[in-house]
C-alpha cells in the first residue's frame, strides 16, 4: 500500500480534532468524551498498522478503564452542571465520522488481516527478552505508585 | 385514678408539668382536646386540655397527666428537653389545635401542609369538604402550592447533594417524603416530611357513631385489619363498662393473631424486596392469600373486614373454620423454615442488615419505640404479657427478643413472632369456648326482638339503638394493645353522645418514623432502605 490509508487519514484527523476539542471544551464531561473519541481513533490507527494487541490494550486500558475512572471522578466532584448545550452538529459529525469508519471497516476486515499483522508472540518475546529490564523497572514504578496511593488513601 | 379505664390521672399546672412528667419512663402520647363544645364532661373552664400519656415498661401501666389551657394564646411548656419523642407529638398538637409550645426547637406543621388555614381538630373547623365551599385550583394557586412544598436548602457550604426521596418512591411503601442531605452516597441529614396520607381519621371519629367508626379503624394500619378494631373497641367497651363473653374474646384473639401473621408476612416480603430480592415477596403473598382465605371464610372480608363489634364480633364462627385454620397451621411453619434458609441465612442479606440501623434499649425508650423494634434491643416488653387484655393471660406463648437492635434483629424478632402467633392460634383452635359471641349488654346489641313486640320501652330502646346507635356514658377511656408494629392505643372521650367527643389514635409508626434520622444519618441510601424496611411502618398508620 502506498502512502497512508484512508482509514489512517480519517482516524488521524479525528484524533487530532477531538483532542483539540478536549482541550477547549468548557464542560469537563464533554472534554472527557472528546478525549475518549480521540483514544478510540488512536486505537483504530493501531489496528490499521497491524498492531492488534496494542489496539486492544489501548481500548481496554485507556478508553475502557482509565477514562471511566476519570469520568467517575469528574462526576463525583461536579454533580451540578451548566445549561445543556444547544449546538449538536460538532459532536454529531465527529461521531458520525467515527461510525462511518467502523462500518467501512466491517467488510474490509479481510484487508486488515492481509496487512502486516504483528504476531503476538513477537511482542511478548520483545517485551520480556529484549526490554525485560525496562518492563521490570516500570513495574517497580507502578508498585511505588500503588503504595503511594494506598498511603494517601488511608488519610 | 380514672374509674373507667383505671389509669392514674393527675391534673397538673404549667409549672408542675415538667417535673411530674420527668417521673415517668416513656412518653407515650401527647394530645389535646378542644373543650369548647363540651356539656356533660366539662372539667374546667378553659378552652383546651392537654393530655399526656406515659407508659411504665416494668408493669405495662399507663398514667395520664392533664393540663388545662385557658385559650389558644396560652403558651404551653414544651417537654422536648425531657423526652425526645415529644418533638413530633407537640408539633402535631400545634398543627391540629394551634397551641404553641414554649421552647420547642422546631414548631411547625407536621401533618397538614404549611399553607393550610386553620387547625383541623378545633371544633370550629369544618369536618366535611362540602362545608368548605367549592374547591378550585387555578394554575397560579397550583404553582404556589408547589412552591410551598419545595425544599430550599440553606446555603451552608460544602458539596452536598440534596435528594428528594418521595412522596412517590418505590422504596418508601407509600407517600412518605424524605429530604436527604448527602455527601456522595453518605446521608448527612434527613428531614422526614409526613402527612401525605393524612385522612383526618381523628376528626371523622367526632362525627361517626360509636359503631360506624369501626370500619375507619381498619384503615389506620391497613395491614392488620381487625387488630385496629380491637384497640378501638376495648376503649369503647371500657366506656360502656361491659364484659365480653369468653368465646368472643377468643375469636378476637384468634383473628388478631392471624392478622399479625398477615401483616408480618407483608413486612417480610417487602423488607426483603427493599433489599433487592424479588422472589420472597411472591412466596409470602401466596401464604398471606391462604390466611386471607380463612379471614374471608370467617368474616366475608379480606384486608378490612371491620368484623368486630361493640361487645363481641359480628357473627359466630362458620362451619368448617377448624379445618381451615388447622390446614393453615400445618402449612405455614414449613414455609417459614424455608424462608429462613432462603432469606435470613443469606450472606448478602446479613451483610446488608447486621449492624445497620442499630439502637439500644435506652434510645428506644427515649424515642417511644414499642413492639418488635423495642424487643429487638433485648428489652422484653409485650403488652400481651405485661398487661394482658382480651384474654391473652390464658395463652401460653413466648415473647421473642434479640439483643443487637439492628435491622437483622428486628427481622428475627418478627419472624419468631409469627411462630408464636401460630402457637396462640393453635391454642384458640383447641380451646375455643362455647357460649355467646357477643355481649348482651344493652349498649352492645339491641334488646331481643321478641321482647320488643311486648314492651313499648324495649321497642323504643331498640329503635333508638338501631337508628342513632348506642349512647356511651360520659367519661374518658384509654386502651392500648400490642399491635403488629408496636403498641396501638385509642383514647376516647364521650360527652354522653352517640359519637365520641374526641378520638385520639396513638399509632406505633409515628414515633418510629420520628427516630429515622437517628438511625440513618451516616449510612448510605441502600442502608436507609434496609432501615425503612425493617421499621415496618404503614403510611396510614403514620399519618392517620
Amino acid at each position, binding site marked *: 500500500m502506498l502512502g497512508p490509508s484512508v482509514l489512517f487519514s480519517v482516524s488521524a484527523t479525528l484524533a487530532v480534532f477531538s483532542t483539540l476539542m478536549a482541550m477547549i471544551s468548557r464542560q469537563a*464531561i464533554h472534554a472527557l*468524551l472528546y478525549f*475518549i473519541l480521540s483514544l478510540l481513533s488512536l486505537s483504530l490507527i493501531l489496528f490499521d498498522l497491524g498492531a*492488534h*494487541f496494542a*489496539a*486492544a*490494550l489501548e*481500548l*481496554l486500558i485507556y*478508553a*475502557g*478503564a482509565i477514562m*471511566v*475512572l476519570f*469520568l*467517575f471522578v469528574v*462526576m*463525583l466532584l461536579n*454533580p451540578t*452542571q451548566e445549561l*445543556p*448545550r444547544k449546538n*449538536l452538529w460538532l*459532536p454529531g459529525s465527529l*461521531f458520525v465520522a467515527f461510525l462511518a469508519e467502523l462500518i467501512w471497516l466491517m*467488510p474490509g*476486515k*479481510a484487508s486488515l488481516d492481509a496487512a502486516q*499483522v504483528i*504476531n*503476538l508472540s513477537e511482542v511478548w518475546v520483545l517485551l520480556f527478552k529484549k526490554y525485560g529490564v525496562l518492563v521490570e523497572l516500570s513495574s517497580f514504578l507502578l508498585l511505588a505508585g500503588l503504595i503511594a496511593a494506598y498511603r494517601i488513601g488511608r488519610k | 385514678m380514672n374509674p373507667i379505664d383505671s389509669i392514674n390521672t393527675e391534673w397538673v399546672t404549667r409549672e408542675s408539668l415538667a417535673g411530674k412528667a420527668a417521673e415517668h419512663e416513656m412518653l407515650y402520647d401527647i394530645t389535646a382536646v378542644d373543650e369548647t363544645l363540651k356539656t356533660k364532661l366539662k372539667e374546667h373552664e378553659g378552652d383546651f386540655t392537654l393530655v399526656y400519656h406515659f407508659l411504665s415498661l416494668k408493669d405495662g401501666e399507663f398514667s395520664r397527666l392533664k393540663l388545662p389551657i385557658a385559650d389558644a394564646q396560652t403558651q404551653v411548656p414544651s417537654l422536648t428537653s425531657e423526652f425526645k419523642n415529644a418533638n413530633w407529638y407537640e408539633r402535631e398538637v400545634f398543627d391540629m389545635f394551634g397551641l404553641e409550645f414554649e421552647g420547642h426547637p422546631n414548631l411547625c406543621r407536621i401533618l397538614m401542609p404549611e399553607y393550610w388555614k386553620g387547625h383541623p381538630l378545633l371544633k370550629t373547623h369544618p369536618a366535611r369538604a362540602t362545608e368548605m365551599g367549592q374547591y378550585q385550583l387555578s394554575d397560579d394557586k397550583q404553582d404556589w402550592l408547589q412552591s410551598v412544598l419545595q425544599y430550599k436548602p440553606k446555603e451552608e457550604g460544602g458539596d452536598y*447533594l440534596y*435528594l428528594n426521596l418521595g412522596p412517590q*418512591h*418505590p*422504596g418508601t411503601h407509600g407517600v412518605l417524603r424524605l429530604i436527604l442531605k448527602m455527601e*456522595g*452516597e453518605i446521608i448527612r441529614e434527613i428531614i422526614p416530611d409526613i402527612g401525605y396520607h393524612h385522612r383526618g381519621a381523628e376528626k371523622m371519629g367526632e362525627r361517626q357513631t360509636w359503631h360506624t367508626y369501626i370500619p375507619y379503624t381498619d384503615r389506620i394500619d391497613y395491614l392488620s385489619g381487625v387488630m385496629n378494631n380491637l384497640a378501638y373497641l376495648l376503649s369503647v367497651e371500657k366506656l360502656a363498662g361491659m364484659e365480653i363473653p369468653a368465646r368472643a374474646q377468643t375469636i378476637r384473639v384468634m383473628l388478631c393473631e392471624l392478622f399479625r401473621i398477615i401483616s408480618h408476612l407483608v413486612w417480610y416480603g417487602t423488607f*426483603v424486596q*427493599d*433489599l*433487592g*430480592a*424479588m*422472589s420472597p415477596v*411472591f*412466596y409470602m403473598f401466596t401464604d398471606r392469600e391462604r390466611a386471607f382465605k380463612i379471614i374471608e371464610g370467617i368474616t366475608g372480608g379480606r384486608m378490612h373486614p371491620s368484623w368486630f363489634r361493640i361487645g363481641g364480633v359480628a357473627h359466630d364462627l362458620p362451619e368448617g373454620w377448624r379445618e381451615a385454620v388447622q390446614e393453615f397451621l400445618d402449612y405455614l411453619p414449613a414455609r417459614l423454615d424455608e424462608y429462613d434458609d*432462603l*432469606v435470613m441465612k443469606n450472606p*448478602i*442479606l446479613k*451483610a*446488608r442488615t447486621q449492624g445497620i440501623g442499630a439502637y439500644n434499649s435506652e434510645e428506644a425508650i427515649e424515642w417511644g419505640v414499642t413492639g418488635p423494634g423495642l424487643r429487638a434491643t433485648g428489652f422484653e416488653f409485650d403488652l400481651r404479657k405485661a398487661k394482658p387484655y382480651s384474654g391473652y393471660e390464658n395463652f401460653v406463648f413466648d415473647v421473642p427478643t434479640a439483643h443487637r437492635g439492628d435491622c437483622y434483629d428486628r427481622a428475627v424478632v418478627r419472624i419468631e413472632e409469627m411462630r408464636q402467633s401460630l402457637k396462640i392460634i393453635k391454642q384458640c383452635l383447641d380451646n375455643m369456648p362455647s357460649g355467646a359471641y357477643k355481649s348482651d349488654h344493652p349498649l352492645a346489641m339491641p334488646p331481643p326482638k321478641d321482647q320488643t313486640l311486648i314492651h313499648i320501652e324495649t321497642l323504643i330502646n331498640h329503635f333508638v339503638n338501631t337508628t342513632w346507635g348506642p349512647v356511651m356514658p360520659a367519661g374518658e377511656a384509654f386502651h392500648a394493645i400490642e399491635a403488629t408494629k408496636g403498641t396501638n392505643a385509642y383514647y376516647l372521650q364521650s360527652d354522653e353522645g352517640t359519637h365520641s367527643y374526641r378520638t385520639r389514635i396513638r399509632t406505633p409508626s409515628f414515633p418510629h418514623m420520628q427516630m429515622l434520622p437517628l438511625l440513618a444519618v451516616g449510612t*448510605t*441510601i*441502600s*442502608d*436507609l*432502605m434496609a432501615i425503612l424496611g425493617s421499621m415496618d411502618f404503614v403510611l396510614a398508620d403514620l399519618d392517620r
Partner: protein
Amino acid sequence: MMTFIIPICMLLGPVTIASLLVWGERRLLALFQERYGPNRLGILGIGQLPADMLKMFFKQDWIPPFADKFVFVLAPAIVMATALFSFMVVPIAPGFVVWDSDVGLLLFLALSALGAYAVVLAGWSSNNKYSLLGGLRASGQMLAYEVFMGLSVMGVAARAGSFNLTRIVESQSSCWNIVPQLIGFVIFYIAALAETHRTPFDLAEAESELVAGFHSEYSGLKFGMFFVGEYIGVTLMSAMMAVLFFGGWQGPFWSGPWWFILKTILLIMSFVLVRATFPRARYDQLILLGWKYLFPLALLNLLITGVVILW
C-alpha cells in the same frame, strides 16, 4: 457469500435471543415464584413479545429538556453497539466466526469495558440526581469488575496459549476449562453479573433505592434499547462463558453449534435463577468484595495456572 451470512447471523441471532429473553425471563421468574407470568397471548404467552415490542415502539420517546441531548441519545446506542460488536469474536462453530482475531479475548474485554460508558453517560446526561447516583455506582462497579473479569480469564488464555477464542475452544477438547479453571469461572461469573447489572449487583438501577437509576428518564425506544441491551449483555456473557469454560461447540457427542447454543441458553437460565434468588448487595460491599477477595483470588488463580503450565 459466507462473509455476509456470518455477520448477519451474529447480528440477528443475539438480538432475537435477547428479545425472546424479555418474555423468557418473565416466564422463568414466574416459574420460580409460584405464579404464571405472561401466559395468555399466543402459545405459552409468546405473543407478549411482539406486544411488548409494539408498545415500546409506539410510546412517546421523550427527551427531557434539562438533559444533555447528544449524550442522552448516544448512551443507549453504546449499550447495543458494544454488546453487538463483541459478538464479532465469538466462535459458534469451527470457522463460523465474524473475525477470527488473535486478540479476540482482549477485544471482548475492551468492548465490555466500553459498555460501561452507556450507563455512566446515561446517568450523567439525564441531569437527574437519581440517575447521577446510578451512573456513579455503575462507573465504580464497572471499573472494579473489569479488572477481575480480565484477570479471571487470563488463566484460560494461558492454558490455550492464545487470545484467539477459536484456539481457546480447541484447547478444551480433552477437558473443559470449568474443571481446571473453576476459580476463574466463579470470578468471571460474578464479574459478568456485575457487568450486566443483574441482581445481586443491579446497583445502578436498584429500583427500591434509586427508582430506576441511570435510566429513570428514558422512555420509549431508548428505554427499550437499555432493556434489550441488558439481555444482549446477558446473552454475550453466557456465550463467552460457554466458549471460555464449557468447551464452546464441543460436546460429548455430535459436536456442533447446537452444543454451543444449548450451553448458552442454560447459562442464561442460570442468570435468571440468580436474579430470583439473591438480594442486592450494597455498593461499598460490592466494591470491597471485588478488591479484597476476588482480586487476590484471581491473581492466585493466574499464578497457580502459570506454575502448573510451566511445571
